[in-house]
């Protein structure tokens, strides 16, 4: 009997410890993140986490933000919406963070938006979908360009080249579907006609059927929205079938990995991308050039080839840091207000000018149209 009582007491004590444990130092800024560091979207989460860790260590070693040190708490969602939800719950209710950066994918971000809005914690997302900021939600911001901007940039270029008939080919993932919807909605505005609308599974290994169908239409250009392995297969298949139409990819493939996967077939592919991948080719007068090169050199010195995705994390972190600095406190509401007032911040994605009606703050000019030539990116003028 005595033993049972003792066990119950130990158990209760353990529970009590768990429930009362919350660090409460006032002079640290707690940044929480939930990123897809492993799993199918690891190519997003991995550079994002590395970037955050590298710069937070750097800020702390230089004495923090005006003396306020940053405490960084990170969870890996493996790109699962369910995990994202659980971890954000944990960040808010257990870790009690001041700012959240993440998630890596649109699905992960959308899954937690209601929760974050209710809890009144500023969140800066690193995901693409326009749904994150439209309609505007008080506590939610993002740094990457939207899929709508990518579609607009592509269509602008198509129109400039005098084409009107577009074949669309997209995957079955969230990014693909959202991109497809934006393309369909925007096409009439640019006077374009979508003559084919083909779909594939993101784990498919061959898309020749869909491309054969496209070949039988009178399409003048092909637009592919997707990320990961599939767009590289589409690119290869198009060249294997001898289709000579110009091919546009989305910003989802703006990494050297795509060129590696698609090989020679990638030659001549055009895509909209943030300045980072063409940093050294930008004119010296470009205000972004200095920031881009500094980030690129710092990242590459430590981890290897840079990608635009890590750049989104850089932007989110420094928008937060600037907001904390001008707010002069770690109060969530004040930080939120200052993030919304971000003006003229030169980041890797472009120059951010946020407002109460725009929680992204990037214009179409922050995208550069690039073409792949000799296995490298070249700016299209």
């Amino acid at each position, binding site marked *: 009997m005595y033993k049972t009582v003792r066990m119950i007491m130990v158990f209760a004590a353990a529970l009590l410890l768990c429930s009362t444990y919350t660090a409460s130092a006032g002079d640290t800024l707690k940044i929480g993140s939930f990123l897809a560091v492993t799993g199918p979207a690891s190519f997003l989460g991995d550079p994002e986490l590395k970037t955050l860790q590298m710069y937070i260590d750097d800020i702390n070693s230089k004495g923090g933000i005006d003396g306020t040190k940053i405490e960084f708490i990170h969870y890996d969602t493996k790109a699962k*919406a369910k995990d994202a939800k659980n971890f954000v719950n944990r960040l808010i*209710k257990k870790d009690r963070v001041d700012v959240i950066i993440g998630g890596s994918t649109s699905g992960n971000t959308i899954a937690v938006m209601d929760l974050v809005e209710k809890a009144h914690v500023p969140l800066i997302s690193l995901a693409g979908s326009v749904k994150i900021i439209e309609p505007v939600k008080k506590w939610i911001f993002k740094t990457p360009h939207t899929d709508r901007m990518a579609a607009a940039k592509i269509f602008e270029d198509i129109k400039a080249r005098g084409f009107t008939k577009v074949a669309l080919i997209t995957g*079955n993932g969230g990014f693909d579907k959202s991109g497809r919807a934006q393309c369909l909605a925007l096409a009439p505005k640019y006077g374009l006609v979508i003559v084919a609308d083909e779909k594939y599974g993101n784990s498919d290994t061959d898309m020749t059927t869909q491309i054969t169908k496209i070949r039988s239409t009178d399409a003048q250009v092909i637009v592919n929205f997707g990320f990961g392995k599939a767009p590289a297969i589409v690119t290869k298949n198009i060249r294997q079938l001898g289709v000579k139409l110009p091919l546009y990819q989305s910003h989802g493939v703006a990494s050297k990995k795509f060129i590696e996967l698609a090989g020679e077939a990638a030659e001549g592919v055009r895509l909209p991308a943030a300045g980072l991948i063409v940093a050294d080719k930008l004119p010296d007068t470009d205000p972004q050039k200095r920031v881009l090169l500094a980030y690129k050199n710092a990242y590459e010195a430590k981890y290897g080839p840079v990608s635009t995705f890590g750049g989104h994390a850089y932007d989110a972190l420094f928008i937060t840091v600037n907001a904390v600095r001008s707010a002069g406190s770690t109060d969530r509401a004040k930080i939120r207000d200052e993030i919304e007032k971000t003006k003229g911040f030169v980041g890797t994605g472009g120059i951010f000018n946020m407002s109460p009606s725009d929680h992204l703050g990037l214009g179409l000019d922050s995208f550069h149209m690039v073409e792949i030539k000799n296995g490298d990116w070249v700016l299209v003028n």
Partner: protein
Amino acid sequence: MKRLAGFYILAAVLIATGLIFPDSYYVTVVGVTICTNAVLAVSLNLLMGYAGQISLGHAAFFGLGAYASAVLTTKYGTNPWLAMLAGVGISGTLAFVLARPILKLKGHYLAMATLGMGIIIHIFFVQADWITGGPDGLSGIPEISIAGLAINNDIRWYWVFGGLMLFTTWISLNIVDSRPGRALAAVHGSEVAAQMTGVDTASVKAQIFVVSAVIASVAGSLFAHQQAFVSPESFSFFFSIELVTMVVLGGLASTFGAIFGAVLLSILPEFLLVFEDFEVLIYGAILMIIMIFLPEGLFVSGSRIVTGWLKKRELSTQ
């Protein structure tokens, strides 16, 4: 009284934890997850543990309930309780229609068929984006209120899911000790022998399949309202496997075993987070060790060891 002793202890623990720690993260967030998983594990255990019919598609019924509620309340403004009822109708009908052909199969073939069903329903959630919102899921699912009380904070959700868990446990315990329960046990032992003694095995199996699907569907509906968001990932094949693991880990054919398994598998990841990269490794190792040394499940083997030990002590003191 004695038959339901375990149930009263469970209820007491649940209520006490809720009252003592109403603000703790482990009650309001982890506790709700535990209760949801426990409801699903107990309902799956009815089918797997008692009737001996494996199902690798249980998450599909959970998902049908969740999506029925999510779609009807957000797109058509249906009353949440009617939506839940619709979910029950869909899941129950589907289970009823599928039960006879599927449950004729045995062993690996049954596993394959239920697996296929789970995957088909999951694909439907992903692909039918005009209804389900596709891979991005559906958000903005409204709150529910019970008898005028809006369920709008975490602790209230804890009471709702705790209540559902107790109710499910109570149903499960009563089914097991009733005539259909004994018929199920007979089917589990030997289907031919059960038929010989006059049990309509096909209909008994179909009934329990429907009951288990309906319980999962109700849990799914509440889950949709609690999360205010649903996406296909929550109802994937992997979640079905997780549920099977809970049942097997706790101990087949034991209602409390299933609850124990659910508690363990829901809490473990929370505590293993501190190991960061090694989390999955340690998780796997723990499951392996339990299955090697306690093959009948943690709860069943564990309670056997404890009773054996108590008996031994009694003998030695005499």
